[in-house]
């Protein structure tokens, strides 16, 4: 077994979970990797920091919004102690910072496997219509807006309901102007500008988790439908699907864009069995462990790709594999919380 130290974020295993813990579960399941897991936490109460069977050591890190230098400084300190081989950032909001720092991290001896800046930028929600045109993928009409007045200018191009989306997270369906204004304010307060107004496409939401090798090959792809959705729109249950057309679409996107790293395609399947691409998330999603259980250990493959290994594409996956998320009261002691809160390490 290959001994590695892997650093990763996304330890917030809450009702709207980050992908960190399921990614770790995939790595722990690996029969090839023997990993020491170093968690990177932003908050003292990220549950993953206290899950000692999954996470060997946790360090607090500064928020990406604090800038590249404070983060790199902290990573230098962590690397000095831990000798991190591979780093897997699991939040959309931190990817830009890590992509910008890819070379510096490489010089430090830390490997990553991230999309390129161009790949990351062009699939942004606000750029999706151009993306659809460029790669021949059907996407709903959308406009990025910086103020409510902006929408008034584009009013003729939309019919209610419309979807109001945040830059990184959050999406609401607005049925009239009042609701649109309310959601616009709610999203800008949390995620800033722009807010994207997207045409509402009627149908069933289906998703694909995938991993691209950066050379145009799909290393793995598993389609899923959410069977239980929380009030935050997050999957609380899901089932793997047999849908060759979803895999074809994923292959098409990965081969054309030469996608590097994990991704999640969010699609609407209309009643005519056509797909509309509503979003591309540039990382493995929180339901990644379903893919692992279905036979595609994408976290393991991602680590191996980061290490420069030649990884062969997965062949198939189990259809009808189900995940059901659950909540669990993790018990810890005050001194553990104190360690993380005061020393920034646990």
């Amino acid at each position, binding site marked *: 077994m290959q001994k590695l130290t892997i650093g990763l974020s996304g330890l917030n295993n809450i009702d709207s979970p980050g992908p960190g813990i399921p990614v770790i579960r995939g790595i722990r399941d690996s029969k090839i990797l023997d990993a020491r897991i170093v968690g990177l936490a932003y908050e003292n109460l990220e549950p993953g920091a206290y899950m000692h069977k999954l996470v060997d050591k946790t360090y607090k890190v500064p928020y990406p919004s604090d800038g590249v230098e404070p983060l790199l400084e902290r990573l230098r300190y962590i690397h000095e102690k831990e000798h991190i081989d591979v780093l897997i950032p699991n939040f959309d909001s931190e990817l830009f910072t890590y992509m910008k720092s890819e070379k510096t991290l490489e010089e430090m001896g830390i490997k990553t496997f991230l999309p390129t800046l161009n790949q990351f930028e062009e699939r942004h929600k606000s750029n999706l219509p151009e993306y659809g045109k460029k790669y021949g993928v059907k996407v709903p009409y959308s406009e990025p807006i910086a103020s409510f007045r902006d929408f008034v200018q584009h009013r003729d191009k939309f019919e209610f309901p419309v979807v109001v989306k945040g830059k990184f997270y959050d999406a609401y369906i607005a049925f009239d102007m009042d609701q649109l204004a309310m959601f616009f304010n709610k999203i800008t307060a949390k995620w800033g500008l722009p807010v994207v107004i997207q045409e509402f496409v009627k149908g069933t939401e289906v998703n694909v988790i995938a991993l691209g090798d950066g050379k145009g090959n799909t290393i793995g792809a598993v389609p899923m439908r959410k069977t239980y959705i929380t009030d935050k729109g997050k999957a609380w249950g*899901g*089932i793997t*699907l*047999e*849908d060759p057309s979803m895999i074809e679409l994923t292959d098409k996107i990965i081969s054309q864009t030469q996608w590097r790293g994990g991704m999640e395609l969010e699609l609407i399947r209309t009643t005519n069995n056509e797909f509309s691409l509503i979003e591309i998330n540039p990382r493995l999603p929180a339901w990644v462990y379903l893919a692992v259980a279905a036979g595609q250990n994408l976290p393991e493959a991602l680590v191996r790709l980061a290490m420069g290994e030649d990884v062969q594409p997965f062949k198939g996956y189990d259809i009808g594999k189900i995940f059901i998320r659950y909540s669990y009261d993790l018990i810890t002691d005050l001194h553990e919380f104190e360690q993380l809160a005061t020393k920034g390490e646990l």
Partner: protein
Amino acid sequence: MLKIRKNIAISDSGFVFDPLSGESFSLNPIGMEILHLVKNGQSFEYVSKHILNKYEVDAETFERYFYDFISTLKLFNLTEPD
């Protein structure tokens, strides 16, 4: 002739799984029997004769229920497109 989609899985307990949509359904024993017959390519005439011989039901009632059942299968996209 009506065709049930090839990849629809029907278990012995009457549990039907559509791997394309991820939806699942439960059938009672007679529903399962009829679905198996239809999936095996049997015509309405054959299915009707089989059911009328086996169960206490008149032809008119069975026909009504049969087409109602078929339209439900179509509604849930369990049949091949016309």
